[in-house]
């Protein structure tokens, strides 16, 4: 049974004639990282918002560990973690204060909360900066704190929306290694990125989405092999989605 299962999900925003998502089929297993790749406006954000229970789909079925989500979204959020593309932290709170607050809302308290916060900051290399305001952090430190905040309650399923945008090679390397370690512990992840080499390196499978539809899905090596002219995931992505600008 997949950890996350999305079947025939569709969504059309009010006032729009084109669907943002159509017949979207997607699964994630335990200990698997699945990349969701697509050009700007392809439907990645809508797909993640629906799968993370933040947006209602017009149709289709969505289940976590075999349990249908519809009608019990709030309860199911205990099993989800979200690392948004933006640095979703309060700049005028310290890293520790931010994590304490989000951990409390995730249902942690007392010693458990304290230990998880300390461990989370330590795992992303911010233990020494726990008492500093997030506003004073570098881009890489903010990204790492952003990831720590999404993982406090140890969710079995994590959504990461471009978590390595605009950071240096050291921070990126650390983040990717950390995600690999989480995967080894059995966490399933949905990962969106515009860095194709990063997706190829990190993801067990990728789904390429365009105009709201998944146009290819599978292991990166198998997908590349299936298109003889493409040497890597980047070439495959452009071959499938075209070179026309989207925004």
């Amino acid at each position, binding site marked *: 049974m997949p950890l996350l299962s999305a079947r025939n999900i569709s969504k059309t*925003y*009010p*006032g729009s004639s084109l669907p*943002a998502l159509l017949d979207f089929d997607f699964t994630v297993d335990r200990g698997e990282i699945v990349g969701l790749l697509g050009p700007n406006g392809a439907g990645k954000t*809508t797909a993640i*918002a629906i799968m*993370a*229970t*933040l*947006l*209602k789909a017009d149709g289709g079925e969505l289940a976590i560990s075999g349990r249908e989500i519809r009608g019990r979204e*709030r*309860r199911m*959020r*205990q099993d*989800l*973690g*979200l690392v*948004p*593309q*933006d*640095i*979703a*932290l*309060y*700049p*005028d*709170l310290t890293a520790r*204060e931010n994590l*304490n*607050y*989000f951990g*409390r*809302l*995730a*249902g942690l*308290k007392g010693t458990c909360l304290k230990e998880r916060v300390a461990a989370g900051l330590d795992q992303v290399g911010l233990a020494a900066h726990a008492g500093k305001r997030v506003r004073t952090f570098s881009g890489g430190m903010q990204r790492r704190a952003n990831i720590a*905040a*999404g993982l406090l309650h140890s969710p079995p399923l994590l959504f990461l929306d471009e978590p390595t945008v605009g950071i240096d090679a050291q921070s990126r390397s650390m983040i990717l290694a950390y995600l690999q370690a989480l995967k080894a512990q059995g966490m399933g992840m949905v990962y969106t990125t515009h860095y194709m080499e990063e997706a190829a390196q990190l993801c067990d499978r990728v789904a390429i989405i365009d105009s709201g539809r998944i146009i290819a899905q599978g292991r990166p090596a198998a997908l590349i092999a299936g298109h003889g002219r493409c040497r890597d995931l980047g070439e495959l992505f452009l071959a499938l989605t075209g070179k026309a600008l989207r925004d």
Partner: protein
Amino acid sequence: MGKFIATSLKEMLLLSRDRSGLLVLFAMPAILVVVFTLIQNNILKSSEALDIEVLWVDGDRQALSAEIARRLSAGGNLTLIRELDGEPLDIPRARKAVAAGHYPAAVLLPAGLSATTARRIELQIQAAISGAPAGTRSAQPIPRITLLFDPLAQGALRGAVTQALNNTVLTLEMERKARALAAVLPSADTALISQRLLAVDARRMPPAGLAQLPTAVEQNVPAWALFGMFFIVVPLSGALIRERELGTLLRLRSLPVSPAILLAGKVCAYVTVAGLQFVLILLIGKYLLPALGTPPLAMGGCPLALAVTVLSAALAAAGYGILLSTLVDSYEQASMFGSVSVVIAAAVGGIMVPVYVMPAAMQALSGYSPLAWGLEALIHIFVRGDSLVPVLPQVGGLLAFSAVCMLLAGVVFKVRGSQG
């Protein structure tokens, strides 16, 4: 409960680190209440001729000038200042002090006033008895009392001082003439001179529903406290919009917590801040303003009515702040529209100028401002000592306004959310 408290504490922590927000919420109403109360208190003093300090330069120093001074002081509206910096006043110093605006008026009595007046009365009586023509009854020059006014003194103040002096002089003149007449006509009963034939009973009607007019303190302390409380609209809507812009709202929505708990925690923090603002302004009214020369603030007799009114006003402001955050797209818009709308609602609602001095059309319009409802309730509590029941209509209005705002905010938020 833990999530609610965590949200409330987080909000307080963020506010405590927002220096400009604290200035807007606490320093601005504190400064405004002091400035406006002192100005309005001074205007009331000038326009109602209460306790006007007048310089008194007595060149005569005889019985008549002493009697004029005694009667003017006994009138209760004028305080005669005879010395400046411990030295007796003279004409040049009095002129300088009035011209500089340090005092609104000076009364200059010439030397020999008593003697000249007595001589004129004697001559006028003799001439009247002898049947001499009216124009030839006195060769003595008329002694003149000079009144100097600050060039910026209001017309009402000038009129009040002039009238008080004229009335005193005229009465004294009549009494002295009667006494002189009695001296030559022993059979005349001079007591009739001081017996009044007519009396004028002047009363100022209080505004509808009030037993008396609120003092400048009773008007301004609740008014500016409410104004400050409604300014929580700016940081509250700003905080909500920042959460949307930063992406923290997305993270919050992804967590297993009810939006109602998050909102309640936030509202609780801002209502607490509004309560602290009210206490601060109340303390200013109770201790600082009287030290600056205003009447003391009567606190009213019903703390429950006061607490419920303040809570309702704070909830109304919080509701409006939440609604605003769903209607605008950026912090800048919230900041601009929030402050402008609160200032307009304050102006219409009688915060800056009391509603009872507004024209009828404006008074009707003020009935639509939540600040007017809050102010009306607070003035009734302070001035009339009303309990909770008489102010329930205003309290109900504030709570209904809050509920409608939050309901609308919920609808707008849902509609916008469904549009991605």
